[in-house]
């Protein structure tokens, strides 16, 4: 097995035939090593991968419009993709047979399968300020519609907890197995800037919020006292000012210039066994954290990922990490690199140049395991 052999992250293997445009979401099947890659070129691609980093494109599912999110059913037989064509489509993972299952009035940003009071339903949230539940066997009418009050940006669900992040820094907390029809809590984000991503701990009682301003907050929605809630900074780089490498600049009050380059936290993904999570930034680096122990487990810098160099002058930022995923046995870690529109149209890569990549990393236990008190 490859995880015993030593292979640094700089030698991670790229997926063959990556999409020609940016990736919006990647997700592994919960039962096999089938990776679904949703992209802005109106398609979902399915790749069969293995531990050695070998990959093979198994199918391409075409949409009418850019695909913004993709998710799998629990048994891995079907996957559901949604995007700018305002609808969600269910595909058979083997045959690729499409079936429209959901409809919104605006692009659908998030899709997720949720266990609502014991029945498995599809939850979709879109930029029409709506969260809808669909019974996929029933078809075209939503089982339930909830008004979110703002455009949905990110959503994640476990068996007990579901969190929807919307524009204007609102977070909606829903307990799908108790009251799926009700927003249990509507809170303002603990972070001061736009929410980019929200992700629930596998334990289901905690969630993590990432913002565009290089910060992650860990929230315990059921705790009475909020002392356990905290946030931390990440994906930031000091802007060197002095002559010596590595000297940080001081805050310049005259020009009110900040001393750091601050990048968005694009993705938070949990390791289902160890409960650690990784953040992927717009800078192009990935860091693994222990959210309970409040420690950094492993950092993959730009250099280590072979994706730019933050120490160079001027710094060469890598291709943003837009989505990350663990496979079903948590042994393969896939991360998608592509342009995340942070610089608008002008920052898009010129035609003919495609920075989009999906890298496959063989997970070493040290990278994802919580450290004990000795730091080992």
């Amino acid at each position, binding site marked *: 097995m490859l995880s015993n052999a030593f292979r640094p992250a700089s030698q991670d293997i790229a997926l063959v035939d990556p999409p020609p445009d940016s990736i919006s979401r990647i997700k592994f099947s919960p039962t096999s090593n089938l990776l679904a890659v949703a992209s802005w070129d109106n398609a979902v691609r399915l790749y069969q991968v293995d531990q050695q980093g070998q990959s093979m494109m198994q199918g391409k599912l075409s949409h009418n419009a*850019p695909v913004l999110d993709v998710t799998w059913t629990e048994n891995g037989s079907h996957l559901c993709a949604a995007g700018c064509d305002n609808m969600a489509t269910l595909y058979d993972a083997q045959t690729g047979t499409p079936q429209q299952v959901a409809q919104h009035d605006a692009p659908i940003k998030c899709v997720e399968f949720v266990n609502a009071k014991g029945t498995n339903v599809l939850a979709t949230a879109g930029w029409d300020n709506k969260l809808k539940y669909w019974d996929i066997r029933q078809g075209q009418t939503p089982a339930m519609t909830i008004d979110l009050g703002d455009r949905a940006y990110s959503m994640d669900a476990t068996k007990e907890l579901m969190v929807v992040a919307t524009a204007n820094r609102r977070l909606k907390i829903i307990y799908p197995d108790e009251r799926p029809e009700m927003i249990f809590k509507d809170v303002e984000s603990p972070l001061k800037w*736009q929410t980019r991503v929200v992700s629930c701990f596998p334990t289901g009682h905690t969630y993590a919020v990432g913002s565009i*301003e290089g910060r992650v907050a860990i929230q315990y929605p059921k705790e009475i006292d909020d002392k356990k809630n905290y946030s931390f900074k990440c994906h930031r780089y000091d802007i060197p000012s*002095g002559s010596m*490498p590595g000297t940080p600049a001081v805050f310049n009050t005259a020009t009110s210039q900040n001393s750091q*380059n601050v990048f968005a936290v694009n993705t938070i993904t949990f390791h289902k066994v160890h409960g650690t999570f990784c953040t992927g930034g717009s800078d192009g680096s990935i860091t693994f954290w222990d959210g309970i122990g409040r420690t950094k487990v492993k950092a993959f810098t730009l250099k280590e990922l072979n994706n730019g160099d933050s120490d160079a002058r*001027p710094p060469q930022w890598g291709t943003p990490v837009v989505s990350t995923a663990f496979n079903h046995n948590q042994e393969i870690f896939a991360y998608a690199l592509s342009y995340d*529109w942070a610089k608008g149209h*002008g*920052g898009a890569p010129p035609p003919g140049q495609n920075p989009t990549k999906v890298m496959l990393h063989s997970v070493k236990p040290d990278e994802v395991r919580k450290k004990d008190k000795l730091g080992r």
Partner: protein
Amino acid sequence: MGKKKRTQVFVLKPWCWYCEREFEDEKVLLQHQKSKHFKCQMCPRKLNTAGGLMVHSQQVHKCEPEPLTNTLPGRDGYDIEIFGMEGIPTNALAEWRARKEAEAGTAALAATANGKRIRHSYNVIPEADLIAALAQHKALMAARNNPGSVFPPFPGSFPIGIPPPNPTLNRFPGEMPMPPPTLPTGMPPSMYPPPPGFQPPMAQNGISGVAPPPTFVPQSNEATKVLTTSDVVVEPPKDGVMWPDVTASPAEKRAQQARYRYQSPPPGSAESAESFEAASRKRKAAADFL
């Protein structure tokens, strides 16, 4: 009277061969080398020398060691045994000494030219200054090319990071065909937004500054139809934050681009099959037209 002798003794500070960083003290240098260059990638162990790290990797982890970390290019090898300042190749040492002496020499020359002693020697111009100077220059050139334009140069208005080469940067209020979609529809045409380089002083107060009121118009079919690619304005980085726009996410802005926009089927025909047909008919018509 009390004029100091200018011929001061030139002292070479301890420095790290791997990353060319200078230190005040040899002890600090040793600490630095241990933690930055001779740290094992697979366990928390730190070794004293490159050779020690190699032996450690081979004996403990049973694998060939990875190249040394955090080094300058080409200096990540295990062949040279360096401990602090000991073991540095003589030619590299001589080169470094010559460089430092030259720097000290030029600094002294500059000091005599200015008539006073300088306190720091900067061998690299800070990036922030460079970027500010570039922005100022760009604004100046733009103003010169368009003497009638109203917007003055804004020195240092791109705070940090490289401003994106946005095509809308070079546009001026008078040429704007229609207000960008981020404006409320009722806005009078005289209230065009300031050029993208401009930032209201309030918003510069950092993260804690009050966010401007949301002006993003949620997308309806009517709104998306009138947009063109260049109408979608993305703000340049502000306070180092790469996406300072509080009203919409990058994905939303991106979805407004012409090439990503989806024309929804006409009301009444919700069937996807019909929309497929409609799309193919449209394509055919366009092809005939060409």
